[in-house]
């Protein structure tokens, strides 16, 4: 089984690849479609997976992954456990800004099986942004797609002067200072 590595392949000109990892396949599909609908001036590859590691046999045709978004549903403990298990199959270099957590399902507090603390700890432990988005709502899905696209452009190096390393500085709360 191969580790996903951020720098083991050459980038393709004017294109970027994002990998969505999560247990809810229909939600991944919807988000992928929303991302594709957005106006962009580069070629985008969206890969979806239920968990890591990715199958080794398709490794040679897979492009370089620029951003990995882990999708966790607060209403399903299983989705959290799945992401936690997948995180151990990743190259540490990814956690320099090329990973983010998408948390959905917080809107219905009475259906939540995952504690907020668990999610916050995950973000702190892996130094990656935690984005709360109710992906069931179309407006929020579109907004999330736009945010991911922006992050993806930066992760793929399309923005001169802006690197994925900056994302960790955005996560520092002013109270921490």
């Amino acid at each position, binding site marked *: 089984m191969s580790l996903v590595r951020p720098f083991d392949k050459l980038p393709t000109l004017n294109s970027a690849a994002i990998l969505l990892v999560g247990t809810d396949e229909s939600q991944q599909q919807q988000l992928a479609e929303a991302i594709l609908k957005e106006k962009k001036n580069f070629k985008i590859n969206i890969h979806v997976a239920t968990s890591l590691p990715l199958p080794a046999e398709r490794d040679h045709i897979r492009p370089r992954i620029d951003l990995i978004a882990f999708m966790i549903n607060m209403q399903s*403990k*299983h989705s959290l456990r799945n992401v936690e298990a997948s995180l151990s199959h990743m190259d540490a270099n990814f956690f320099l800004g090329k990973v983010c957590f998408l948390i959905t399902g917080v809107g219905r507090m009475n259906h939540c099986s995952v504690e907020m603390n668990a999610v916050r700890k995950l973000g702190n432990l892996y130094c990656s942004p935690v984005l709360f988005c109710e992906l069931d709502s179309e407006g929020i899905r579109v907004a999330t797609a736009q945010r991911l696209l922006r992050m993806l452009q930066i992760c793929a190096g399309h923005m001169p002067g802006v690197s994925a390393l900056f994302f960790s500085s955005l996560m520092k709360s002013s109270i921490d200072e």
Partner: protein
Amino acid sequence: SSTENVDPQKIAFLLRKQWTLYSVTPMYKFSYGNLKEYSRLLSAFVAAEKQKGLAVEVGNDLGIKVTLSTLLGLKGTDQDQVAVLVQIASRSQLPFENAENKVVWSGWFCCISGDDLLESVPEDFTCLSLFLANGAESYTAIVGSWFQKTFDCYFSRLTISPLNLAWMAAMWTGCKVDSHMAATELVFSVPCIPQSLDISYAIHSEDAKALWDTVQKTPGEVTQEEVNLFMDCLYSHFHRHFKIHLSATRLVKVSTSIASAHCDGNIKVLD
């Protein structure tokens, strides 16, 4: 849990009944000294509400009597307010039966370990934030609206989240039960189209307690990690046998020999 004189009979009456939970905002100018007066006013209010729409002579006593009393022994800490019990009894309408009052509806207010909240409550407010009702929904609505009007408070249904239900499952499993232990049952709801599917997972109480005993490190103390571990063990056991991830479903009901609770806000204490 307190040093008050506890009336065991009164407390025993709370057991083995299904209670619907409500959350109540602090009550303005509620006085424990006026319980008799409140009983009188509420009796009149209930009678009036029940008579609405009925062609009954005004002043005719429908045989409804409401009593408010205090319930001792239900405080979590000494700062908690004393619990208040409201009961609606109806006198038998049949002439040959002796006029014995039969309790048709009960409700009680309590405040359990509300230390942090009580510190910030202003004067004139009484904090009895939990209300439990047993009996006809129509009576609950009438009593609720009287309290809301009289003390400027608000009642809302209290639902229990899967996280809290898991805590209850762990805590109740850990309790020692002398008599015969009923099976511990967990009910999970699976979102399916068109109708949701319910999975019921029953475990021998002894096995559940044995599992909890290996998980709990400090007796008398329960942590989130221990609750998670306890539930994860149950989930993986289920997955090994049925290949279903219960962790992807929603826990909706917990039932042990001590008590049972449903996410809609219904609880029953058995022991």
